[in-house]
């Protein structure tokens, strides 16, 4: 898969892993550049993890610090679990991007800067008094000041069908071409992508392709780049057919797979909300799978329609983020009361309220668990990596339908937008999803009769003769479902609904422990912290110490052996992107003195941050706040920071 050496290159330096970050104005095409680089890297066979970082504003003023958009990728010749702690290579399209990101770049890291925007105005917007490319402030890095925009314009000189503005916008492809040369990548996948993407405007397609090749050739012809010619061999992975997939794509694809496997029509109800909207966009494309997508008038209606569709016998799914989940809690309670199967996806983002809409957080766990009135248990799942969203979408549907209960799937901004290589499963590897609607059998129909094993009630859908019945939000009498205000019936039904969800524990795998079974310290996490914890534990072990890791993908009910696992270790650390929600649950449930390790900065943990936390606990030091020397921020010491 690797190309032969580019002409003129004596020898490429082999690296095990590299982290690259692209940064520029939101209009600079940074995300496209990142996506293309990722795809090509994936095709080259490296393991990889990505972290897109969108600015919060739709279009902050050009050239300003809040307008900077970033994309980070770590790729390697071995297994990796995170998008990298610090970039080894930074490509900055303007002074603001340089300002925001340069301090993260490793010492002696490769810094490629487009000189075009380093004029007085743009430097002032970024807060540079003097030109950093000309003073000595960047001397710790291997600086490549390149007139990327100008060279792009020159390479496109002959193209008459494309405006100057459009030509200028091809500069990201020039930079991408440079990055491809540095890492010895094949241009083929991106050339093909451009062809397909701009098939309606051949002029633009030609311009982008020309710029891409020009960037590549420029490095090839320029001696200075010989020093940064690298080679990252493919990672040894399980044989098979692979693709690169983001969390939201994996989720949407998993939902369609669940629909096909179960034979149930997929109904997806949603209201536009960041960072969940991409699931709606993706599903809306797949109408030839019989998918019905419904963009409702509001979050409440989306959820209510999903409950209605479940009554009608569809595989019914709602997707949202925190503020939307709050609005959905009323109709979710109705689904709990009427025991209808619905899946609710919460792509968590920074909260409360509008919070940090484009940034990641894990602070909806307790809300998912308890955020409804009355005793209203639901099942809760959380995939650990972007690609795992595929299987967990299917799993959420399977559990909802089999146990006749709402299921919440907790993703987050990092999982949703991050991507990784994914071995494409055979259809035969997908879980079975048998579904049977109730049919009249001559006996009186009991809508609230229960399956002995799962305690679930029958799914009797309108249109079925002989099963006419009424359900509703009022408490129902056991068996008949008639409205009942009988206090003992209410108590029994509350317990039954809770027991039904608790029984799901019989239907899910036990909690697995990775690493050293006989360690003193266990690191337990859930959801998207998996990669950072995994990479931290690896480093602990590489340093000759013992540590165990367990990762919860089922948050309610917890796997059967959770208590047993927790009690096996002297110390239990729980890293989370919140102020200690899983810690709280585990302490309350099992009386285990879980040590929280928390971060609330709108970004995922780096492996190093978790590593520092583990080391502190092992050495009996206080846990520090990630990214600073201050003690870990708590509600009682916040003023000391």
């Amino acid at each position: 898969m690797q190309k032969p050496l580019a002409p003129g290159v004596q020898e490429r330096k082999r690296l095990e892993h590299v982290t690259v970050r692209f940064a520029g104005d939101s209009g600079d095409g940074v995300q496209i550049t990142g996506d293309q680089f990722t795809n090509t890297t994936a095709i080259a066979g490296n393991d990889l993890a990505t972290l897109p970082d969108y600015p919060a504003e739709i279009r902050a003023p050009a050239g300003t610090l809040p307008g900077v958009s970033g994309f980070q990728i770590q790729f390697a010749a071995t297994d990796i679990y995170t998008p990298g702690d610090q970039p080894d290579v930074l490509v900055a399209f303007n002074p603001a991007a340089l300002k925001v990101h340069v301090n993260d770049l490793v010492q002696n890291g490769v810094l490629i800067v487009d000189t075009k925007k380093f004029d007085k105005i743009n430097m002032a917007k970024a807060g540079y008094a003097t030109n950093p490319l000309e003073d000595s402030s960047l001397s710790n890095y291997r600086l490549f000041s390149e007139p990327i925009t100008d060279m792009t314009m020159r390479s496109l000189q002959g193209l008459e069908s494309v405006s100057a503005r459009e030509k200028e916008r091809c500069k990201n492809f020039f930079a991408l071409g440079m990055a491809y040369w540095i890492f010895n990548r094949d241009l083929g996948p991106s050339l093909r992508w451009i062809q397909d993407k701009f098939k309606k405007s051949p002029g633009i397609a030609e311009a982008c392709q020309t710029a891409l090749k020009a960037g590549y050739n420029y490095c090839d012809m320029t001696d200075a780049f010989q020093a940064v010619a690298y080679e990252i061999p493919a990672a040894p992975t399980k044989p098979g057919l692979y693709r690169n997939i983001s969390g939201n794509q994996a989720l949407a694809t998993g939902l369609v797979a669940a629909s096909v496997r179960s034979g149930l029509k997929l109904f997806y109800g949603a209201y536009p909300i960041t960072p969940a909207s991409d699931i709606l966009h993706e599903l809306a494309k797949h109408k030839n799978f019989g998918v019905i997508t419904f963009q409702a008038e509001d979050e409440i209606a989306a959820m209510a329609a999903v409950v209605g569709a479940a009554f009608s016998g569809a595989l019914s799914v709602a997707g949202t983020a925190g503020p939307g989940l709050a609005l959905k809690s009323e109709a979710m309670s109705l689904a709990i009361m009427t025991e209808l199967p619905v899946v609710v996806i919460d792509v968590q983002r920074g909260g409360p309220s509008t919070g940090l809409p484009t940034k990641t957080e894990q602070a909806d766990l307790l809300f998912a668990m308890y955020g409804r009135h009355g005793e209203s248990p639901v099942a809760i799942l959380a995939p650990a990596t972007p690609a795992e969203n595929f299987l967990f979408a299917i799993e959420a549907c399977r559990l909802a339908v089999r146990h006749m209960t709402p299921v919440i799937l907790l993703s987050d901004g990092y999982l949703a937008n991050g991507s990784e290589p994914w071995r494409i499963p055979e259809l035969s590897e997908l879980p079975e999803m048998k579904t049977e609607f109730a049919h009249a059998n001559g006996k009186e129909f009991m809508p609230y009769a229960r399956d002995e094993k799962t305690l679930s009630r029958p799914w009797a859908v309108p249109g079925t003769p002989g099963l006419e019945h009424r359900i509703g939000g009022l408490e129902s009498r056991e068996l008949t479902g008639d409205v009942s205000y009988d206090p003992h019936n209410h108590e029994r039904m509350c317990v039954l609904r809770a027991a039904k969800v608790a029984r799901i524990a019989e239907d899910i795998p036990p909690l697995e422990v990775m690493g050293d079974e006989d360690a003193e310290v266990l690191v337990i996490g859930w959801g998207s912290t998996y990669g950072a914890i995994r990479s931290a534990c690896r480093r602990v072990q590489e340093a000759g110490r013992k540590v165990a890791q367990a990762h919860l993908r089922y948050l309610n009910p917890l796997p059967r052996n959770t208590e047993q696992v927790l009690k096996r270790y002297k110390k239990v650390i729980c890293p989370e992107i919140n102020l200690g929600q899983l810690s709280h649950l585990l302490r309350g449930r099992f009386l285990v003195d879980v040590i929280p390790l928390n971060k609330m900065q709108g970004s995922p943990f780096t492996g190093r941050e978790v590593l520092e936390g583990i080391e502190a606990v092992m050495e009996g030091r206080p846990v520090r706040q990630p990214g600073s020397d201050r003690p870990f921020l708590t509600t009682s010491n916040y003023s000391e920071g």
Partner: protein
Amino acid sequence: MPAITASKAEKQKFTKADFQSNQEVRWCPGCGDYAILTGALQVFAGLGIPRENFVMVSGIGCSSRFPYYVNTYGFHTIHGRAPAVATGVKLANPELQVWVITGDGDGMSIGGNHLMHALRRNLDIKILMFNNRIYGLTKGQYSPTSEYGKVTKSTPFGSVDQPVNPVSFALASEATFVARTADIYLPHLQSVLNRAAEHKGVAFIEILQNCVIFNDGAFKDVTERSIRDDENVLLEDGKPMIFGKGRKKGLRLKGLSVESVELGQDGVTEKDLLVHDQRAEDQTLAYMLSRLDHPTVMGIFRDVTRPSFERRAHEQVQNAKERYGEGDLLDLIRGKETWTIK
């Protein structure tokens, strides 16, 4: 999902008893809801559609108990959300006959947004709004249709907000079928419900309903027998708008408003009167009629044909299947760019 076939050819015979559930009806004695239930059950039976193909969806309020009393599928949902739940029910299975039962509080207040969107989308559901101009279930607070200055438990000094007119609201929300009737006009109510059932698209029916307990005589000035003839204009398609004892009055357009005139006075003849056109594409005249209160206009204001929401949605699915072929899961999972590791 079971396929439903109920073509006219195999129209079956049902009686009101087939549609009556075994639940004891629990509205207050004398409540207008009883009459509406009786009328509706007869209409359902007469449609010749098996009862398993009906779904009654309601929100919260006295009226929303309705589904419990109908022996079909039923869903007593949450306050104001019935149109949204019904949207899911109908989109997931367009063959079902979905009837939404709501009230003035449920539909116009907490559920106003859902109602507006169900109407504008032209989802093929039938929405019966029992308007008693009061909150009955919560024991007597003023509602969005209560008249200005209404004294209730929550407004001891009188309400200070302008009421909303449900028919005007429905017309402004692009509903394709809009009607008004009353609990005590049973034959009229039934004919309106029958027409609503025939309509392919959303149907909105405001039913003036008396609440004997908290707002007795809510529509006395409209429906009481002694004044009824002079206070009601019954719309008939294609006919001039004549009303009043001895049919001596009529409605005429004057500038940008509708006025009531005496036939024969000042040379007014039938020719000067407005002629009702239910199928008019423009709803402006219907809207003006909906605003009159002395007399109050009853009947079908509007009945126009437009493709329904769920049909359009399912057509898109059908078209996609024809254009791209039935979805291939493995293709979808593979995506566009793949590579093989040996």
